[in-house]
């Protein structure tokens, strides 16, 4: 009886003498009726043909792209009439920098904590490069390509490159920055600061920069040599980082900090246009932690992969009882 009974419940109890009918009516009230059904079902097909179906583009396709199987992608491309990409592509590739630091320098623990005026501090600063045979071999290799190379002069040049690189980073002068910094270092330096404003000042060098380590490696061919030289800096700098909205998120423009750094410089010796560029920075474990950020974060819960739990109630091997149940 669709749409017939629209009585309120208190009247229903008066009208229905039979309580069973009243009960059924109350149940009926809880059921929803469908109002979308036409009263003449014989003409359904004709009614449907009134409106011509139009194929609408699916704009939400990209959200589910990652879940498609290769076969599904192939079929979709066929529908759109897109040819698949060529089976193998040849591309010229230029390797202008290595991807890591080879045989990294291990800084002595507690370096930079003692003043060079004390006995201990003086001993620390008397770390001669000439006593390190492997580094000296590397220096000789560098001299075979670059005649004027000497660790003492190079240390000063390295500091100039360091200052130039940081100034370019602050000004977001990425052309100059590419000249001063390798392809490994570039994203590490720029990625987080893309939406930020940086203010950096190099106040002074507390100790003269010193070459502490040198290594040479070859990539693919024996002649294709890259050299990596580690320079130790002990400087005073100020750094202030502001976010997109001009709010201070790290450091201070006024407070100067003493910085001990071990910066790896790399040069592609085999390339006649190669330059000495900052490659990486060695941060030892004993180095004190940086100033914490001015923001709180929601700690992400570690994703625990649950092992399949063995159900002890159900026996693994079929027994008489389990067989009976099955």
């Amino acid at each position, binding site marked *: 009886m669709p749409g017939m009974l629209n009585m309120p419940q208190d009247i229903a109890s008066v009208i229905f003498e039979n309580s069973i009918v009243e009960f059924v009516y109350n149940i009926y009230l809880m059921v929803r009726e469908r109002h979308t059904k036409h009263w003449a079902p014989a003409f359904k097909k004709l009614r449907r043909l009134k409106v011509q179906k139009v194929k609408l583009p699916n704009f939400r396709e990209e959200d589910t792209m990652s879940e498609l199987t290769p076969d599904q992608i192939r079929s979709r491309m066929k529908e759109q009439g897109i040819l698949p990409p060529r089976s193998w592509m040849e591309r010229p590739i230029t390797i202008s920098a290595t991807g890591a630091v080879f045989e990294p320098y291990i800084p002595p623990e507690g370096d930079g904590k003692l003043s060079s005026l004390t006995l201990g501090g003086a001993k620390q600063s008397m770390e001669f490069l000439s006593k390190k045979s492997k580094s000296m071999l590397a220096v000789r290799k560098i001299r075979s390509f670059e005649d004027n190379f000497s660790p003492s002069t190079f240390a000063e040049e390295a500091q100039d490159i360091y200052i130039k690189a940081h100034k370019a980073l602050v000004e977001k002068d990425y052309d100059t920055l590419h000249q001063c910094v390798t392809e490994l*270092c570039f994203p590490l330096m720029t990625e987080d600061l893309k939406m930020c404003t940086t203010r950096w000042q190099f106040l002074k060098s507390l100790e003269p920069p010193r070459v502490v380590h040198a290594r040479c490696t070859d990539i693919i061919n024996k002649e294709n040599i890259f050299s990596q030289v580690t320079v130790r800096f002990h400087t005073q700098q100020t750094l202030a980082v502001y976010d997109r909205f001009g709010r201070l998120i790290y450091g201070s423009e006024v407070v100067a900090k003493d910085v001990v750094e071990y910066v790896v410089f790399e040069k592609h010796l085999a390339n006649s246009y190669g330059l000495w560029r900052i490659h990486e920075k060695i941060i030892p474990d004993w180095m004190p932690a940086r100033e914490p950020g001015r923001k709180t974060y929601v700690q992400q819960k570690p994703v625990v992969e649950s092992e399949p739990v063995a159900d002890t109630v159900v026996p693994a091997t079929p027994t008489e009882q389990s067989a009976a149940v099955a």
Partner: protein
Amino acid sequence: MEILLRQFQTKSFLSICKCLEPAYSHATSWTSGNAMLGKTLFHTSNTVAMPYNPPKGPRKWPIYNKKIFAPQLPGEERRPAYVCHMRTNIKYSPFKMWYVASMIRGMSVDEAIKQLSFVNKQGAVHVKEVLLEAQKLAVEKHNVEFKSNLWVAESFATKGLVMKGIRRHAKGRVGLVHYFHCHYFVRLEEGSPPAHFFFETAPKTTKTLLSEWVDEMRQRRIPGSL
């Protein structure tokens, strides 16, 4: 040194389709079949294997997210962060979407999401998803500390793609059927929502009420007078 490297089709179709964006020099280890290279860096040249599909729809709204403000002076009031987000070509009419978009104006993000969960409109599902995405973006990329400390500063919908179909009416008459799409835009701002977002619904102060009454009284004229 330039070397020629072959990329064999050892990878799946899916990953090939994925790496169809224009190449740029990246410092990630893009190892090929040659294990000797190890973790070296490649500076690749640009090659395109698939036909270029230009971006369609509105593109200016997210550009507001790229604006960098000058560092604030120590005494200045802290500038509130904002994030602009949108969803384009939602299969929903802009005229219907207007109701959903205007409902949440001036609400805090949590309140808006709560309300949208119980609005009986298809557009509300999309708006809720956009709000959640925007909230996530704000925390991850726009230096917003607390995800609840956001309110809906701007919320509006515009017309998107409209496709036209036909239908027949009685006696051979033809009718036009419009298949509407809309774009939905939202801007979330950091902070608590303002007490009165709409000027019209804000309670008037006694001062304004008085001045309005005085103006009304002074506008009275005697009809037919000199």
